[in-house]
């Protein structure tokens, strides 16, 4: 059970990391257009 003393703080860090990644993705416009990339991949552009 002692492992939990390490795992619980670790889980907090992981959550913080997930939030950081999500904010970064949102900032860079990843969630602006959820349909376009699926369509664009069909055309090989020269």
């Amino acid at each position, binding site marked *: 059970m002692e492992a939990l003393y390490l795992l*619980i703080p670790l889980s*907090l860090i992981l959550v913080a990391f997930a*939030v950081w990644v999500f904010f970064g993705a*949102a900032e860079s416009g990843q*969630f602006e*257009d959820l349909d*376009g990339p699926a*369509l664009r991949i*069909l*055309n090989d552009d020269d």
Partner: protein
Amino acid sequence: MNAVSEFAACYHCGQPAVDGARWRVSIGGEPRNMCCPGCAAAAQAIADASLDDYYGSRTGYAATAAGGDAPELKLYDEMGLNGDAVFTVEGLRCAACVWLIERRVAALPGVQSALLNVANERLHVRWDPADCRPSEILLALRAIGYTAYPYDASRHGAQLERARKALLRRLFVAGLAMMQVMMYAVPVYLATDGTMDADMAALMGWASFLLTLPAVTWCAWPFMRGAWLDLRRGLPGMDVPVALGILAAFAGSAVSLVRGEGEVWFDSITMFVFLLLGSRWLELDARRKAARALEGLQHAAPATALLLAAWPAPCEAETVAASRLRPGDVILVPPGQTVAADGVILEGRTEIDLALLTGESRTRAIGPGEQLPGGAVNVAQAVTLRVASSAADSTLALLVRLSERAGQDKPQLAQWADRVGAWFVLVLLVLTVAVFVFWQAADPARAWPAAIAVLVVSCPCALSLATPTALAAALERLLRHGVLAVKPHVLETLERATHVVFDKTGTLTRGRPVLRETVALGAADGAGCLRIAAALEAGSAHPLAAALRDALAASGTMSLKAHAVGSVVGQGVEGEVAGLRYRLGSAAFVAGLAGGAAPLGAGAGGTAVWLGGSGRWLARFDLVDALRPEAPALVRALQAKGKNVLLLSGDDEEAVRAVAAQLGISDARGRQLPQDKLDAVRALQAGGAVVAMVGDGINDAAVLGGADVSFAMGQGAQLAQLHADCVLLGEGLAPLEEAMRTAGACARVIRQNLGWAMLYNLVAIPAAASGLLNPWLSAIGMTASSALVVLNALRLRRGD
């Protein structure tokens, strides 16, 4: 070339095109049929830019291209767009469109990048202002068949976009916090006494606290802010108990945590915050979709006019913004264009269409010296006009102001809902305090949990969550069926409406003449006569001409070509088809060529157009402003629901009575000015009626603004759409019936939800107040209740 009349799809847009038609474009080495010059021009532009791969990789037809030159696009150059702008593009159909648009725009000289966002149909372009102008980008898009216009962020839901971005982040953080806190909470709930030591419990408690902190302070911020604003207004809304519940539970848990004894409810708090944000998300999403549909309707290029600066000396007409016109300016009004400002005709005779302005269904002949109101449409020939009053003082602008005044006096239903909500909240807060005081005296340890349980359990979810979710679901369903609800109260008011008032021209009728019958007079058959007539009218903007062309297109017959066509205003057209001379128009005009009197009288109702060759009468075409086919069934359905149906029209009494008789409407009034219509509706409202109004014209704008709930036709005047609560997209009245059905279903679901919430609160609040429920149990009860209510609301989306 074969002359067999045969359908083939237009290679560009898929509309029926006649094989061997006039418009052909060679694509990939093969000639392809086109339905219209617009599509032909678009296809040619695509082929010329060697982008014809588009046709190979697309998975759906393009939208029919409008084609033609658009000098008004030049005005966008004066908007101060400098090198970086966002344009809204209409008509995106499939993956190939994305490719085509990006490639075409990127190929323009001076354009640095072009990126299309498919989700919101916006094209972001960066260009070098020295080499490229916004109008060139818009023209290039127009040339390949897409309508585009600058996206004006301040006008169109920029606020909604920002709110959506912020909400997405809050929702994500709240969801993550909820899941993680739940992880820590489950072992605590599951552990039997003594199996978990105090240190471990404290560690989990502090970890939960750390995760709940951002959920409460940042994610729940909109509710805190809303509660604060409500309190300052002195009208507590649903945000008040929500915010109080969150804060009280958080403070209580934090105190327990520090003291190392008592309950913590971090899991309930994060779940509560997440669910509330989730329902907001659904609501915002529905509003965003509606806002986008509305944007497409109202983009309106700035009104333009063709100024003849040097008149009467011959000069080039210059395109200027209508707002720049001053009294005394001389402008040219070409056929097919709307008159920009009130004025007096200097030169030329023409016919004008006042259907959107007054509701009159027939065109009116007009000549030099006569007044021409701004907003009328010139349908026959170009005229020059001396502007009598600036655009801001024109007939059109006066009608706009009348409408704005009408809108301000609209009955405010929303306030009623707010007051009821406030009353509920006050009772709840008093109850919470009473519970706290009671337990403080009886058993202080249970005072906090009981008070928080009351706040959380009653979480006025039915009121604060179920009703908006039901409305959002219903609005989404409406949008799918072509009803764009602009104001949120539409469904509620429509259900309560006692009177439904219709406009005639353009609403119950199509608003343009339709060929009802062709009466052949000579040897030639009706279909052959129609081909000749359509050929003569091929270049005309007159509504009667359009009706003949449409009738021919609908019959699928190949069209002919006319030569040496000349027209006499108010009389008709004359021209040669296959080497023979024909006249088409009024009986007197045709008699000039055919000789003698017309062999038949004019048909009953509507307008008769005659066709004759030299020395012989050929046919009479009966054109009427036909009823929309779905109108009779709609009126019957409304009457069956016990609603009173009225008809108020600006057209003359006789035409109005004829339509009313066909539809079984007993109360029909003609010759109604905008003010008369508004007065009639006000009189009904004064008698306690709830009035729904359906209209399309500029003359309806005021009454649409004044009615309790109003619908504008999607193809009507923009002014009417601006003042209506709801816009029927597409053609026809069919969506209105769907709106009535959805309103009924929505009211039913809301009643069920409120009923359930009432029952649940009657059981749960006393249980919580008596201390039987601890906060986590009440949070589960609240969640289950919310889920039930939301799922019930989502049933509305399914209905077809």
